[in-house]
């Protein structure tokens, strides 16, 4: 049996391989289920084994997409059609069968607890979304032409995220409080409220021999806003991007519902790093590839954001903040379609343009002209008082 001696050894080594190479999160329960699944199908049929292991070990779309490739990499590493017996056996430590055997034999509850323990994120650790973002094939190709292009240059600098001071946090708190999204649809029990709760009143009356002495009410809670901050990290924003990142960290320090991205000619998610900075840990962002220090392709990057994150992040509770000077080199039609779609699917779009502070500036660049009809609030934030001013321009009780 290839590459290791027995089915349990192979299975455990394969799981270790999936975890290490493809970032699967497989716990001991799934490993046990995988072993049971192999009891159900014919193990001599490669396709049946693959079809049986996929639903057990892959738990997301990303996992399912990578599974077949990983299966072939692990079990059929040679050229197509080469018999397994002719392949060299991998060194035992690559798949970790020794660890794997321990895993299969160890106490299930103990292993499960180990896996359910939340991982402490490190600056270099990538979430699945971020991994997807970095491995995405839509990123500009790193060809020789690309390296010398003034637009597609790969980032050399690594922006820094630093914890923000109290002034930033206070201004961000004002912003979060001013964004009211109305009431949730769900009616919840409350001591007082807008709607009489017949069911709970009758239920309570059973304790008083059927006499409804205690009246119960229902009310709808306020919705919590979610912020998506998209920071333009292109060269033209070199001076203002750091302020935009400070603002992002400030918002993340007062709200749990924040997602952050940077873009230049490619998009990158930096939410985890922003959260760490908001928690007081200064750090320098990792390899930014095409999301920092290059040209500006706002339209394609926003379209990319919509394609990959739109379904999960946009909604009627989401306020999208775009920090960019709008000096786009891409197709303005792409920008128009993307910004219109973002506006359609979110509560508000706030566009922060640092050039607004420049005397005599008019937003006549093609990118700004085409985007403005879909922008709810157009402003500039260069410091905490400016953020507080922006928040105050929003009328309380309504979305911006």
């Amino acid at each position: 049996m290839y590459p290791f001696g027995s089915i349990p050894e192979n299975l455990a080594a394969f799981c270790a391989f999936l975890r290490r190479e493809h970032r699967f999160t497989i716990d001991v329960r799934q490993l046990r289920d995988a072993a049971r699944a192999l009891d159900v199908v014919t193990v001599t049929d490669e396709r049946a084994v693959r079809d049986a292991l996929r639903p057990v070990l892959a738990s997301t779309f990303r996992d399912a997409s990578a599974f077949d490739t990983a299966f072939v990499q692990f079990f059929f590493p040679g050229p197509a059609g080469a018999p397994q017996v002719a392949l060299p056996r991998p060194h035992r430590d690559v798949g970790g069968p020794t660890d794997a055997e321990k895993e299969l034999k160890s106490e299930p509850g103990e292993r499960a607890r180990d896996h359910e323990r939340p991982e402490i994120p490190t600056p270099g650790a990538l979430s699945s979304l971020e991994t997807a973002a970095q491995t995405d094939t839509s990123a500009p190709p790193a060809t020789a032409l690309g390296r010398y292009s003034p637009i597609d240059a790969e980032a050399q600098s690594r922006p820094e995220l630093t914890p923000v001071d109290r002034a930033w946090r206070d201004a961000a708190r004002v912003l979060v409080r001013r964004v009211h999204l109305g009431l949730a649809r769900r009616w919840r029990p409350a001591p007082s409220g807008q709607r009489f709760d017949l069911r709970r009143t009758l239920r309570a009356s059973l304790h008083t021999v059927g006499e409804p002495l205690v009246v119960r009410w229902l009310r709808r809670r306020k919705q919590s806003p979610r912020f998506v901050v998209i920071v333009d990290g292109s060269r033209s924003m070199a001076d203002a991007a750091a302020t935009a990142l400070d603002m992002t960290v400030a918002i993340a320090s007062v709200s749990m519902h924040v997602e952050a991205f940077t873009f230049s000619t490619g998009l990158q998610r930096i939410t985890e790093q922003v959260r760490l900075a908001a928690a007081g840990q200064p750090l320098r962002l990792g390899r930014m590839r095409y999301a920092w220090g290059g040209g500006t392709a706002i339209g394609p990057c926003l379209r990319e954001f919509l394609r990959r994150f739109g379904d999960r992040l946009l909604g009627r509770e989401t306020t999208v903040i775009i920090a960019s000077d709008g000096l786009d080199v891409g197709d303005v039609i792409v920008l128009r379609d993307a910004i219109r779609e973002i506006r359609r699917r979110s509560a508000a779009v706030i566009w922060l343009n640092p050039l607004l502070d420049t005397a005599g500036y008019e937003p006549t660049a093609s990118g700004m002209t085409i985007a403005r009809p879909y922008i709810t609030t157009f402003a500039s934030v260069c410091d905490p008082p400016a953020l507080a001013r922006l928040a105050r321009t929003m009328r309380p009780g309504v979305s911006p």
Partner: protein
Amino acid sequence: MIDAAVIRDRFRDRGFIVDEAFATALQLALALEKPLLIEGPAGVGKTESAKVLSDVLDTRLIRLQCYEGLDSLSALYEWNYPRQMLHARLTEADGSTLEQREAQIFSEKFLLKRPLLEAITQEQRPVLLVDEVDRADEAFEAFLLEVLGEWQVTIPELGTIRAQHRPAVILTSNRTRELSDALRRRCLFLWLPYPSLEREIEILHARVPGLSGRLAQQIAQLMQLLRGLPLQKAPGVAESLDWALALMSLHRDHLDAATVEQTIGCVLKVHEDRAVLDAHRQQMMPIVADSPGRVELGGYGLDTDFGIGSVTTPRR
């Protein structure tokens, strides 16, 4: 134990074409008694698969449709309070003790079973469909996790009710939000993509008997084309079937440009998508039978987008 090949055949008999991976996932879900989480774009047959599975197993389908604001009581059980009150009033003078009356009032007679409780109290193993679980709140997801893990429900007045037979559970999600890792780990996972050209033709023939081979081919080819365009709402298999049925009712045995223009509303459900198709008409022309020049697809152009800022459009 039901084999994957048997599942495929029985699904095919009912007009539902499944591939080996899908059949194996269903086989494992039944054999391992684990919930099967099916994700995929809208209209690829996620919900329908649960209906067909219940038919294949000749058992009851119990459906829990999730929505924002769904709470545990709506999914589990409620007491029939008006009936309890009435009973309490009517038996006030029958001489029974307080304990006796309480036991009567809080008996199964007055219990309104909601889908989850209904599913675990069936004599025969049912199919429980938890549809669009991504639309429910995270709090409900955590509650669901508990029920799916323990298969027992504690009703304070009655005690703990354990499942006599674990239901075959199918959860569906359109990925409007990410489900928790904890829920995912407790389920088998299946990604159901759009079908390939050949499989879509097979599905069309299976679900729309009498459809001409040429028309099925054209519909499937156009669907493949449309799914490759940057549409806001890409058409699923459900739209293919609707379109095929519409064309059958119009007595068409093939597609031409004029017919596409007349019936494209069966497929494209978002106004802007028509403009996208219009821009890619050249790619469509080789598929349709005759192409008499430019075909106006009708509707409003993108320039007259009156909806922004004044009309709320539903979330995708």
